[in-house]
């Protein structure tokens, strides 16, 4: 049997299993709390795994392993930012959000401010961030199928995008948060298992000596010891000061963006208490941290055993480094059949990874549309829970359909920058609004609206005029050049700008509600009045 056939069989098994779970979950999805927050009945450990499943995208699995395989040390910079970011969520956001909100990020903002403007702003930002991220994942899925299963035709790529889109729509509309969470838990276990297995085999190959692995990786890379040092990918010597500032800008967006990503924030609502939210972030940190340590070995292992040339030959961005390594190490340790099996396993896991992440993004954006925009802005709260959930399901269908169409259209474009843009918007707009809301007594409606639109607007604006959109061979539009902003990552400008807008908007408005701040502060820190788990 070829690895393609086996991978397809494994992947279909995953799909069948998760669909069964989704149908089961739908029977326990009765009201809005079930649909949006999984009945708040997940344990800290379960939610910790789901956080891992939601967060470890194909970009971080295949992308970071590939970056390390091709550029060595610099790929590691990414993983560190992605991990450290969770401390912002743990220390400043998770528990307070769980205590003071219900279903969406906007709940926290609307608590003490004029609900319609802040829900509109938060809804727009949530949907924008989720669609940016979603689109990058969808296009990635189309590219992956060619690499992993050998289907190179446009038809196969488009069919894959349609399949991924259809599955995510089913997970979300049928299973709601419960179904989506279980898909993410299963995926997290499979991904950790697959990555750990390949890592162990690789380390065994080098006698569990990290230094030997690094030596061989440096030798095979053709770059020598520079491969083990920063500077081959980011802030290269040729890029000068611009490159260094770009590196800091990227680092800021990574570390501050996570705690503002809507699909991450809604995960904190799925547990019964703030204490469980704390516990789930700690589990998440443990799982994600271990995972990035595994990708470090995978990346250097791929450089040492597969070699940069062989990796570049398959995919110039290095996205196939992890699957290629799985095949190589399987072959060396277990013979040809071993190579086929391991490659198939990793390919199937990579697809499971995409599905779990896109489902989380679809849920976050459709929840925000139904709960924030439809129920509270359009209908001014005059809507039944039933109808709200019905709208959320329809929104998931529409958002899924739109991202399928955009994904197919964007297939030939280089949209990898969209993930970084999503992090930048989350860090520049959502995070300031959330933090001010939770910690600043004086903060008000105009401050929240200014922070979100200011952060979102400046990040999108700067990226539009950056080298990732035009003026470079690898840009979105290769035959135009309207880039005047020198950095690829807007964070170093847009994050302070978002915080500044929030401050300025606040002090320019006289609105000020001491009683409401007292209420949200007491609730956030003590858990008074917070909703518990739902028992049916």
């Amino acid at each position, binding site marked *: 049997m070829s690895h393609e056939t086996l991978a397809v069989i494994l992947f279909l098994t995953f799909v069948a299993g998760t669909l069964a779970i989704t149908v089961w979950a739908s029977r326990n999805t009765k009201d809005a709390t079930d649909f949006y927050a999984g009945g708040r009945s997940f344990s800290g450990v379960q939610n910790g795994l789901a956080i891992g499943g939601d967060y470890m995208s194909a970009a971080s699995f295949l992308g970071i392993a590939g970056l390390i395989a091709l550029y060595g040390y610099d790929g590691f910079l990414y993983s560190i930012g992605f991990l450290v970011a969770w401390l912002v969520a743990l*220390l400043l956001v998770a528990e307070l959000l769980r205590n003071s909100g219900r279903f969406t990020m906007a709940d926290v903002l609307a608590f003490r401010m004029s609900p319609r403007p802040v829900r509109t702003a938060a809804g727009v930002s949530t949907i924008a961030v989720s669609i940016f991220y979603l689109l990058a994942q969808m296009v990635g899925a189309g590219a992956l199928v060619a690499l992993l299963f050998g289907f190179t035709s446009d038809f196969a790529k488009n069919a894959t995008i349609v399949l991924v889109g259809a599955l995510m729509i089913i997970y979300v509309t049928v299973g709601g948060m419960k179904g989506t969470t279980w898909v993410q838990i299963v995926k997290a276990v499979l991904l950790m298992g697959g990555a750990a297995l390949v890592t162990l085999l690789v380390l065994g190959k080098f006698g569990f000596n990290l230094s030997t692995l690094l030596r061989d990786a*440096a030798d095979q890379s053709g770059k020598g010891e520079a491969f083990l040092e920063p500077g081959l990918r980011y802030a290269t010597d040729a890029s000068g000061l611009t490159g260094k500032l770009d590196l800091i800008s990227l680092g800021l967006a990574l570390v501050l963006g996570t705690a503002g990503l809507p699909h991450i924030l809604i995960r904190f609502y799925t547990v019964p208490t703030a204490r469980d939210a704390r516990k789930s972030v700690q589990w998440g940190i443990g799982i994600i941290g271990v995972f990035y340590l595994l990708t470090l070995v995978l990346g250097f292992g791929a450089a040492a055993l597969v070699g940069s040339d062989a990796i570049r030959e398959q995919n110039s961005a290095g996205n196939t480094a992890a699957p290629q390594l799985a095949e190589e190490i399987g072959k060396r340790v277990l013979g040809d059949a071993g190579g086929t099996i391991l490659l198939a396993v990793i390919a199937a896991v990579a697809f499971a990874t995409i599905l779990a992440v896109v489902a989380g993004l679809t849920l976050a954006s459709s929840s925000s549309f139904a709960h924030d925009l439809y129920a509270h802005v359009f209908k001014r709260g005059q809507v039944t829970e039933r109808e709200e959930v019905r709208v959320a399901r329809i929104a998931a269908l529409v958002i899924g359909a739109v991202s399928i169409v955009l994904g197919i259209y964007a297939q030939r474009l280089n949209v990898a920058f969209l993930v970084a843009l999503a992090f930048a918007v989350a860090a520049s707009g959502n995070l300031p609004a959330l933090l001010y809301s939770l910690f600043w007594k004086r903060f008000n409606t105009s401050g929240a609206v200014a922070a979100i639109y200011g952060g979102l607007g400046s990040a999108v604006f700067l990226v539009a005029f950056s080298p990732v959109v035009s003026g470079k061979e690898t840009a979105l539009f290769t035959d135009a050049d309207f880039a005047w902003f020198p950095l690829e990552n807007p964070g170093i400008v847009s994050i302070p700008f978002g915080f500044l807008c929030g401050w300025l908007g606040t002090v320019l408005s006289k609105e000020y509600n001491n009683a*409401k701040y007292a209420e949200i502060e007491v609730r956030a820190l003590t858990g008074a009045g917070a909703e518990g788990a739902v028992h049916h």
Partner: protein
Amino acid sequence: MAVEHHPTSTVYERVQQGPDFQELRRRFRAFAFPATAAFLAWYLLYVVLSGWARDFMGTKVVGFINIALIFGLLQFVSTFLIAWQYSRHAERTLDPLADRLRGEVEASAGAAAAAGGGAGEENR
């Protein structure tokens, strides 16, 4: 659900001004704020060194393991340590006080305003 339900009650203001809550907030911020400042500074130091101090980062320590790798791994260690320390801090010094205050708020706010899980039940 019908309305934005944020039952306003002066009980929150009274609790907020009380010594117990002031102490809870002080304890929470005394850990969360300095820890955030510390890990952000530590992380930015790492990023800045990666950009500006290549020679230093490339210094080999043991075999092919250099300072850059150790520095990166230390970011993992510090993240795990802060997460662990925070949970100890929260369980010992925040949770008991928070529970007591929660009880007080919910008792005096009455069933309509903030009974346990009350906010959600209103909508069913």
